[in-house]
């Protein structure tokens, strides 16, 4: 399948450069440090456990939550090359003159990035699994946190791919994806709180990524939240395809 070939290329491309390795080792270090800090504070005073959710809630969910925050910066760094880099090196012409459709190109790119998201998820997964040796873990909360982390990273990656399709300047692509992510992650709630019109306010609040993400870290998998993420990912994939189709019109 052509999508998998493109995904594989995208993934290889990340690991061919230092970036992927730096990100993976950075995340390992950060997750490890947070784990040590959280475990220490938990041991010092177990009753502080947030909302009485136990060790999984205080430590594992917090770590996944924090890791998804890291992806506000990591996703744009990874995705800025996916189209901007190809435009800049003119390698996009290889893709555009091959007998493949824009949708296949975009899906392939996104799939490659999602695979990287999965690989990164292994790090907090393994590090927090080490807690098994000392305590019991809440499997349900564990996996809802993991699912939340994956959905949020996939969303950020897709937004990054879209931003990267806008320009052949990689820095600009990274900045705009950080902008879009920050806006959808929590700025949108800020804006909503300023608006006095009810309908607009609730519409804006609905767009907030963090609002839809937080239930996952509390052990809730709401189908409405899952659908929200699927919708937003699909929207940005479609926008990217449209953007690339119109790229041929402008340049």
């Amino acid at each position, binding site marked *: 399948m052509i999508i998998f070939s493109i995904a594989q*290329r995208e993934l290889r491309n990340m690991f061919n450069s230092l970036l992927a390795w730096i990100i993976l080792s950075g995340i390992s270090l950060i997750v490890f440090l947070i784990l040590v800090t959280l475990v220490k504070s938990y041991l010092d005073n177990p009753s502080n456990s947030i909302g009485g959710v136990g060790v999984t809630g205080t430590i594992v969910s917090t770590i996944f939550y924090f890791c998804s925050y890291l992806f506000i910066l990591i996703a744009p760094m990874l995705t800025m090359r996916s189209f901007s880099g190809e435009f800049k090196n003119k390698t996009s012409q290889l893709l555009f003159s091959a007998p*493949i459709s824009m949708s296949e190109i975009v899906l392939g790119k996104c799939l490659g990035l999602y695979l990287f998201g999965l690989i990164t998820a292994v790090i907090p997964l393994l590090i927090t699994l080490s807690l098994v040796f000392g305590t019991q873990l809440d499997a349900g909360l564990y996996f809802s946190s993991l699912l939340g982390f994956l959905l949020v990273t996939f969303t950020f990656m897709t937004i990054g791919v879209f931003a990267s399709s806008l320009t052949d300047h990689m820095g600009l692509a990274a900045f705009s994806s950080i902008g879009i992510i920050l806006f959808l992650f929590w700025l949108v709630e800020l804006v909503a709180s300023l608006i006095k019109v009810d309908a607009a306010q609730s519409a804006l609040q609905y767009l907030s990524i963090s609002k839809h993400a937080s239930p996952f870290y509390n052990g809730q998998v709401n189908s409405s939240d899952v659908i929200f993420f699927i919708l937003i990912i699909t929207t940005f994939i479609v926008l990217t395809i449209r953007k690339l189709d119109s790229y*041929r019109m402008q340049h």
Partner: protein
Amino acid sequence: MSRETLIQVENLYRDYGNLHALADVNLTLKRGEVLGFLGPNGAGKSTTMQIISGNLAPTSGRVLINGFDILDEPRQAKAALGFLPEQPPLYTELTVIEYLEYCAKLNRIPRADISKAIARACERCGLGDVQKRLIANLSKGYQQRVGIAQAIIHTPEVVILDEPTVGLDPIQIREIRTLIRELGSDHSVILSTHILPEVQSTCDRVIIINRGKIALEDSLAGLDSRLRKNIITVSLGNPPELATLTALNNVDTVEQLSEGRYQLHCSDDFNPADFASSAVNNSWQLNELTPQTGSLEQMFIDITCSDNNSHQAEEVTA
């Protein structure tokens, strides 16, 4: 077998804002033909190549490749097409083999045939020795060959090469030209270039484009005869007055090259035999009568410059 049309470009227009990059470009490419697409920088060569390869959408007009419209049925059209852009689209962090493998996959070559296709492309482009090296470490000539290998990996009916010899040294240029000529034996090739000898040494037919319009289209043989006719160098032992020569039938202007040696610029009806007989009749002692194989370069400059002038004139009147 009749020579079927592989590429048909009809009434192609392309605007960038107010700038008309292409205006009413028509061209056809037959099977087994090497077409030279010639023009000064900025004439619209790359734009045309980009449109034919599906990288750019035309403002209006259509492109048929092997009978498929590039915009309506892009997959079938692009399957018949190999494209080497001006800057070869190389992933420099890959080895030659890895890169070609990816290209093979992009062109939907079945998994079982990929290694065969890579071996064939490498052999054609003389990449045997460098297959395992990183593209980034290859010389520009080899990188260009990798670019050509990429364009022919799926044995497309049509290969489009956009200025394939830019930036190469003379030996590399000769090698690439040989390669292009070889490609012409089983692919149809469109070769875009601003280098004239390249066209003379590789192409069957030439299209000259200037300011987004096709200024001239002819076979190379037709061009040669067109060039040969009009300039004649004569050398006379006993030359008459310059005015006498100018007054001859069908001679437009005369240029004195040295003592007794002239260059006659003639109209299309000029017959050298007439000149020879008048030289004998007037005892001018004809020593030399050489039809000048005018260079394509001269013709190219004539076409492109005259057009520039008329364009300027238009601007003045407008």
